[in-house]
Each structure stands twice: as structure tokens, then as C-alpha cells.
């Protein structure tokens, strides 16, 4: 059964009966079926070890599914040739809990890095980085090194790097995991702005407050399976919660 909310737009991400078993024998995902339309904002929630990170790893093709198919923008990730992978990743903006900034590069250089690998000309890099810095409200911090920034600022640099090449998808794995609630909320506002511009956002998170406040689409993963897919959901299942309370 494909759990798909009643969106009228064409899906840009599709999981069809996806299974993932690691070489150690751990079955991380079982029969995942999911469709994500263009412009959607989707929270992946669930307890640790439920399979959220595996799902993200499959989406960025760090892993291949053991069985089933994953389509992103019409490309079947499992069958994509290795040499095509860099070109796929250029369509995606990635944000991680540990920011993955390069400590020996300045803020400007870190963001410009995503454009340098594309071979963009210098003048183009300059204007795009300035624009990205403006979006994440970090103008004036170009020459600062990551070590001299707060956690929230570092995550904003990571987001600027993820969006500087105008990707169609943003995939975020616990982007607020290392941040205090106020900073986490600021970061979420950024993601919402990016989403409002048309980018599809898939975010794995443990942040219950934010999920409950935003009331966006929530896909709950439990024991490697899609346990729930609510178009405007909460972190915990309302019915289950009421049953617990009762």
C-alpha cells in the first residue's frame, strides 16, 4: 500500500517497496512506499534506530536499496551509474546535524566550495555566495572561520552552502540536533523560507516541538516501516497519544 496524502502535484521522490538490509544482517528498512510531491515539506520522525537516517542515506545515494526502487526527479537511484552520482548530488542540498563545514576554510570559502566543484566562474561565485549569505543573515561574516561561530551560525553557513547552487531538493538529517530551542526555531524559519521558494524539503528530526508547531507533513518510521503518513501531522500519533492518556 502506498501511503500518499492527497496531493495533486506529481511526485518528485518515490519509494517503491524499498528494503534495506546491511551486510551485518540488520534490516533497516522494510517495504517503504512513499511519494513526495514537488514543493512538499516533509518531516521524517521516529525513535533512534527506526531507519530515518538509512532513508536519508538512500536518498543521497550513500547506500543502495537491497530491494525496491527509489526515483528522484525521474532518476532511479539504485540503477544510477557511479559516474552520474556527482551530477545527481548537485541537484540536492544537504544539511547535517554536525554541519560538515571545513574548519580551515572561511565562511565565504565554505559556501563557495559548492560552486567551485561545479566549475562556476569567480564573479558568479561571488554574487551567489553574497546572496546565500544574505538569505541566512550572515552578511559580514564572510572572512570568519567556523570555529569562531556559534552552533546556530555554523548551521546557517551549512544551509547557505546547501542552497547556494539553487537545488530542487533539500535533504536535512537532524539539522537542529545540536542547537538550543531558540536557534533551532530560527533555523526552521530558514527552511520554511527555502521551501516557500519552491524547493522540496525532506527533514529527519527528533525535534518534537518544531514538528508539532509547524504542522507539516509527517512520515513516522518505526522498526524500518512507515508507521504513519499525515499531511498535517504531529510528532506523535494523536490517536495513540489519546490512548496512552486514557
Amino acid at each position, binding site marked *: 500500500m502506498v501511503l500518499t496524502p492527497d496531493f495533486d502535484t506529481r511526485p518528485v521522490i518515490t519509494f517503491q517497496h524499498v528494503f534495506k538490509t546491511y551486510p551485518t544482517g540488520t534490516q533497516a528498512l522494510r517495504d517503504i512506499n512513499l511519494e513526495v510531491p514537488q514543493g512538499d515539506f516533509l518531516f521524517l520522525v521516529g525513535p533512534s534506530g527506526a531507519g530515518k537516517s538509512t532513508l536519508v542515506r538512500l536518498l543521497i545515494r550513500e547506500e543502495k536499496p537491497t530491494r525496491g526502487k527509489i526515483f528522484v526527479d525521474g532518476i532511479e537511484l539504485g540503477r544510477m551509474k557511479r*559516474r552520474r552520482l*556527482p551530477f545527481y*548530488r548537485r541537484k540536492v542540498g544537504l544539511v547535517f546535524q554536525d554541519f560538515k563545514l571545513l574548519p580551515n576554510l572561511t565562511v565565504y570559502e565554505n559556501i563557495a566550495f*559548492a560552486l567551485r*566543484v561545479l566549475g562556476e566562474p569567480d564573479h558568479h561565485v561571488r554574487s551567489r555566495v553574497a546572496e546565500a549569505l544574505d538569505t541566512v543573515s550572515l552578511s559580514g561574516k564572510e572572512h570568519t572561520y567556523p570555529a569562531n561561530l556559534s552552533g546556530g551560525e555554523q548551521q546557517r553557513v551549512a544551509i547557505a552552502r546547501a542552497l547556494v547552487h539553487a537545488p530542487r531538493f533539500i535533504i536535512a538529517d537532524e539539522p537542529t540536533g545540536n542547537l538550543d530551542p531558540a536557534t533551532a526555531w530560527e533555523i526552521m524559519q530558514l527552511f520554511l523560507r527555502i521551501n516557500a521558494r519552491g524547493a522540496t524539503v525532506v527533514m529527519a528530526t527528533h525535534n518534537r516541538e518544531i514538528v508539532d508547531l509547524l504542522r507539516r507533513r509527517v512520515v513516522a518510521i518505526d522498526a524500518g516501516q512507515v508507521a504513519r503518513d499525515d499531511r498535517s501531522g504531529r510528532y506523535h500519533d494523536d490517536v495513540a497519544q489519546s490512548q496512552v492518556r486514557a
Partner: protein
Amino acid sequence: MMLRNLKFALNSAWQSFWRNLAVSLAAVLSITLILILAGINLLVGHAFSQVLDGFRVKVSEISINVADDTPLQTTYEFQQQLAADPRVISVQFVTKDEALARFKADPQNFVLAQQISGNPLDAKLDVQVKSLDDVAAIDALGRHWSGVDPTDPTNYQGDFVSRMLSLSSWLNLAGIALMLILVIVSVVIVMNTIRTAVYHRRKEIEVMKLVGATEWFVRGPFVLEGVMTGLIAAAIALALLVVAYEPAVARFKSDIAFIPLSYDPAFISSLARDLLLGGAMLGALGSYIGVRRYVRV
């Protein structure tokens, strides 16, 4: 775009070389030592090939002794036949009188020359053969000639020549084997040094891959860094070898005088070319292999 990528790779390689100076210097030192050994191998090989060439010239000249009763016409005909042979460089006819004069002119024969009465020496054909491998065939030709002195047909020393040939091929083989060992050892050293550098930068590589860098975009700076390391090492090794070359030859000559070793400044340019090319290639190959594990997506 290619140029921009090359500029980026060159910048990254240069920065990385200086940023990881300790690792870079370790790599330079290792490759320098390997290249010095390789350079010594080349220089010794060249010196011995010079010595062997000298011997070769000597042993590839044989004398075919002409019997006293052989008509001059027959000797001239055989001389022409030999001169027309493609294996032969030159043939010189030495008369009995010339042979005696040469014998007497040699100071080593002074005492013997005093005791000689008449001319016991044969007239001879001195044949210069192109290749050492063909000397035996020319010797056989001479021995089968009707005008040859049957008691002492030629001065060909087959054993000596074959020993020379086998020594020369063994030396070549030993040189190649030593070179091969040096290449393998240096590739392993460079590979491990670069792997250490890559390990320090694995986070950077991970980020590069995540933002969509191609394998060559990631690998390029490391390979260039390897080339740079190899070239610096080659330049140091070359400088040390050039400085030590002439005094080492002089010392060798004074210690072991019977081996006619000589200093050959013309060889330095070919040594420079080989070392620089070798250093660059070793650096590139070591880096290519060293970085492969981390670059594969």
C-alpha cells in the same frame, strides 16, 4: 571550466602541501632517498656500460692470421669479401713486416723483440665487427678460409667474449631488478604518505563528494600534490648526485685503478630528465593509488 578546475586543483595542491608541511616533508624525504638510490643505480650502470663498451670495442676486433704461402691476391679477395659483409665495420690488411714493426714498438715486448731473429709473425687481417654477438661467426669464417694459418688461425677468445656478454646481460638485469624494487618501494612509501595526508583531509573529501564533486575533481589536487612532491624530491636528489658524482668517480679511480671508470658530464642531462620524470610519475602514481579508497563514491 577545465582551466578553472585546473586552477582550483593547483591552488588546493599548493595549499595542502604547505598546510600539511610535516607530512609533505616526510614524503619529500622518502622520495629523495629513493631517487638518490635510483640515481646511483643509473650512474653506476652508466659507468659500467662505458667500461663494457671499451671492452666490447677491444673484443669485437679479431685478427685472422694469413699463412706465409697464401698468395697476396687470395688475401685481397678475402679482405674484400669480409669488407662486403654487413656484420663487418672495417678490415685492415697488416703485412708481416708491419706486424713485426708493431710488435717491436710495444714496450711490453722489448726483451722478446731483442731475441727474435727473422720474422716469425704472420701477416694478418684485422677485422672490426659491428656486434659482439657476430664475432664468433666472423671467426668461423676466418678459420674456414683456405689462406688462414692452420696452426694459429685467429686471436679470438670465445670464452672471454661469452663471459663478457653474459656479464653485460647480468648487469643489465640486475640494474632493471634494482630499479623495479626501488619503484615498488617508492610507490608504496608515497602511497602511504599521501594516504596519511588524505586521512587528515577525509572530512574535506566527504564534503566534496556530498556537494557533487566528480572523482577527478577530488583526486586532481592530490595527484598534483604528489607530482609536486616528486619533483621537489627529484630536484634535491639530482643536486646531491651532481655534487657527489665527480669526486666519487675520482675516489673510485684512485682506489680501483684497473677499472677504467670515467666522469661523464654529458650524462647529467639524461640523469636529470630521468629523475624528474621518475619523481613526478612516482608522486602521481602513489597519490592516485593512495587517494582511491577515499575518493570512490
